[in-house]
């Protein structure tokens, strides 16, 4: 019975993640800070060109935060090269989660 329940749970989880991914794929207009060819780029989803390409992550994150403040986007997401998200910023609050080492979290208004 336990095995059956476990299998069912796994299939429900997989169906749920599939649905949520399709929904998430529709989201547009967010700004992302990404590593790009040894530099850091601030890019908006769907835009052909980067908003900015700078040499360090701190400057890139500041540019993304400015975009959120000015209403150029509602959300900015900072990515690591391994595909994890290191932090995200929204017009309402800032949330930060480290993906490596000890987990820390903080939230504050921009």
């Amino acid at each position, binding site marked *: 019975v336990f095995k059956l329940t476990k299998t069912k749970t796994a299939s429900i989880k997989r169906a749920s993640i599939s649905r949520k991914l399709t929904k998430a794929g529709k989201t547009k207009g967010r700004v992302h800070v990404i590593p790009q060819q040894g530099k850091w780029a601030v890019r908006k989803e769907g835009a052909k060109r980067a908003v900015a390409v700078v040499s360090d992550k701190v400057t890139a994150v500041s540019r993304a935060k400015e975009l959120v403040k000015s209403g150029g986007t509602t959300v900015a997401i900072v990515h690591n*090269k391994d595909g994890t998200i290191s932090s995200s910023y929204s017009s309402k609050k800032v949330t930060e989660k480290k993906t490596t080492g000890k987990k820390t979290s903080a939230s504050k208004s921009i």
Partner: protein
Amino acid sequence: VPVNQFDKNVFINCPFDFKYKNIIKAILFTLVYCDLEPRIAAGSLDSLELRLPKIKKLIEESKYSIHDISRMRASKKGEYARFNMPFELGLNYGFRVYGGKNASGNKSLIFSTKRYNYARAVSDLAGIDIKAHHDDPEEVVRGLRNWIRNTLNKTDVLSADNIWLEYLVFSGEFKKLMKEENFSRKEQNRMEPKEYIHYINKWKKERSI
């Protein structure tokens, strides 16, 4: 195999170990994102199917192939180097040479961590163009996208910058959702390529950029 499907199939001859997972994920994402169909021997549930005939079938059903020969060198003392990849590359080359009209238009991309580390082990490969990825998923996305655009002459693909962004956006979203759905670390690490491809397709389904 229907003609249209054959023209989209890409035989994947790459490692699937834990250390390689970021590379194989970047390969699968880029292929699916460029409307190509990855064909992989790993992940079949039919345990009775013999491996070699299965690989032969995959090669014959695929117009294109991607090989990674990075693991020809053992990573530590006492470990065996792995020769499945160069062996299957040889099988693919054999199909190209002896496969007649079925093999016409067959094109391959060969990846390795470094550009020249293969020559000491398989000197027959001297002169063959190998693309180095330095174990960097970004280099994989860019190298593979450019190969699809320029060697396969697929003109409708996004720029390398955009595919790299899309890969990071998808990966971030996917990892976040797996956490929300309580996927254990073990479940995430052991996910079969076929399942990962399924999720890329789900995400891409209504994605318009």
